[in-house]
């Protein structure tokens, strides 16, 4: 039995004629301590898949099992890092993290909470900004708060929904390393949703492409056999990296082409000639 199991999941929105089938026949098994990345195009149903796993939504059919038990609603055992940070703008960095820590450790002493909050904010290098509000922070800093908030609750599994999608390349690289460091430290299970194949290869043990919806489903998995810690600068010359990267991109290109050629709508183009508008004598 795997740590997290998704068995024959389908997810539809709406009913009757308005029904859209977002996910279909999803099967996913993640072992404890594993780092899995799911890559897919935007709009392919990635966020829906994440919401099924973290418990914000329930599948139409099939089952999500976490440690052998079906997922019903959200749980502190699964920490979520949202795509758009989702910090509460009226709270400071400290208060945003505090809110999560208080919920995760309801019986803990004040000192313990304070220490833990400060520790996690320090971990994402935000101690100087501890009294600032999200509006005063840059995108990268906001996402770091979000990371601190998710991790401070001490979840057994971290679910990341395109956490770095909106950041510039440099910040992105730094945060990737930070997340990897934290994951490495206490070997939590991690699921990363991303649209960046390189990010997936750099961070994950396995990459699974998500075929775009409607009726999105998971494609064949690609194992990343590169030793950790991985060095970004050397990665480009690693033959294993090149091979995996090419295979994944080829696969994604193929399903992309398949999707556009599968289009059943045929547009009749009008047979028109431009009129001669030159002045005639």
């Amino acid at each position, binding site marked *: 039995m795997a740590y997290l199991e998704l068995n024959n999941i389908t997810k539809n929105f709406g009913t009757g004629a308005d029904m859209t089938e977002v996910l279909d026949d999803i099967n996913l098994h993640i072992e404890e301590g594993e780092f899995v990345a799911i890559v897919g195009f935007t709009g392919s149903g990635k966020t829906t898949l994440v919401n099924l796993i973290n418990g914000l939504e329930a599948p139409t059919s099939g089952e999500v099992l976490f440690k052998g038990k079906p997922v019903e*609603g*959200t749980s502190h055992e699964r920490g*979520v890092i949202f795509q*758009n940070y*989702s910090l*509460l703008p*009226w709270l400071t960095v400290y208060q945003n993290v505090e*809110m999560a820590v208080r*919920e995760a450790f309801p019986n803990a002493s004040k000192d313990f909470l304070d220490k833990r909050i400060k520790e996690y904010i320090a971990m994402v290098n935000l101690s100087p900004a501890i009294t600032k509000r999200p*509006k005063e922070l840059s995108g990268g800093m906001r996402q770091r708060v979000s990371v601190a908030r998710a991790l401070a609750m001490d979840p057994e599994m971290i679910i990341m929904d395109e956490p770095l999608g909106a950041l510039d390349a440099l910040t992105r690289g730094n945060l990737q390393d930070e997340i990897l460091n934290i994951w490495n430290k206490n070997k939590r299970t991690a699921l990363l949703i991303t649209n960046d194949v390189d990010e997936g290869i750099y961070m994950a043990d396995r990459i699974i492409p998500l075929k775009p919806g409607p009726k999105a489903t998971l494609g064949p998995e690609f194992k990343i056999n590169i030793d950790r810690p991985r060095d970004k600068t050397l990665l480009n010359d690693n033959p294993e990296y090149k091979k995996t990267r090419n295979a994944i991109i080829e696969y994604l290109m193929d399903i992309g082409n398949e999707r556009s050629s599968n289009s059943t709508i045929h547009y009749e183009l009008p047979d028109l000639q431009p009129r001669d508008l030159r002045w005639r004598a």
Partner: protein
Amino acid sequence: MKDSLLRAFRFLGLGFLEPVVRLAAGEDSKKNVIQIFKKVLAPIASMILFLGIWYTGSKSLYNKEANYAIEKTRSERGDAESEKTRDCIASGDVSCQPNTLPSPKQVWNSFQLLLEDHRQISANKEAFIVKTSALNKKRLEQGKDPIVYTGRPSFVDQIKTSIKTVFAGFLLAFLFATPIGIIIGLSETLRNSFNWLIQILKPVSPVVWLLLVFMIVKTLTKDSTGDTSYIISFISVGLCSMWATLVNTAVGVSSVDKDYINVAKVLKLGTFQKIFKVILPAALPLIFTGLRITLSVAWMVLIAIELLAQSPGLGSFVWEEFQNGANDSNSKIIVAMFIIGFIGFLLDQIMLTIQKLISFDKGSDV
């Protein structure tokens, strides 16, 4: 020093004084002089223009009224009498002044007179209190009610009463509309079931609310001998003005960003935590916009309601002056008009200031 002064000015809605402060602090003079021209001199010029139009307008209305009076005397009582009327008007005698829109000067004079009147009345009141204090002590010892001053209220007293009424009404609206708005906002079923009622009651005129409140309060206070007009007017004010808060609160609570709700779910906040730590702070800007509208509506309908309910205050002051028809009644009405406008402006500024203090997006505009 300069920065804190600027912040204080902006906070108090006196942002137009900013270039003056900057100039005094010795900043870029050319730019600030232009700013002073734009932000300080231009408003003053528009005020002067307004006074000018008012002055010429009232002058021509005055002349028209005067000519009409002279012509009327001529046709009714002959040339000699008409000359007498003309002289009388020209001499400025109170007995024959044309009754029309007063000039700015007359209004200013009336304002001074009203202040003088207020000083007089408060002096009288104080004298009365001093005179009756010994007697009142005795009456209290005997278990009787003390003698109170029952003289005519001054203009300033009327203003105070009006402000008291508007705050009582506003408080009522606040205490009533915000909790109901929150409850309605949280439940879609409740929102749907009350929507029609709110939509129908919202556009009802203040006059009708007053009559409704009158019907109810009259019956409820059958056995009390006190003055119910104050109760009637502040309840009506509250009822008329609460709709903006009710609707805005409901909309604010029901339209909280889905991301925040997801956060609350992922953190597994309890229902109360979710309402007080996530939903209410997120809805606060809209709730406050509602409260601001409520206060300005309350002040606006208050005048009409006082006028109709005959409860003391600026509204009844205006009405009494209109009924009075004395020589300076018109200018007193205009004085009241400006005072009403000015207090309304102040109330709005107070609300804006509180909103800036509480709201979380204050970083953007202060």
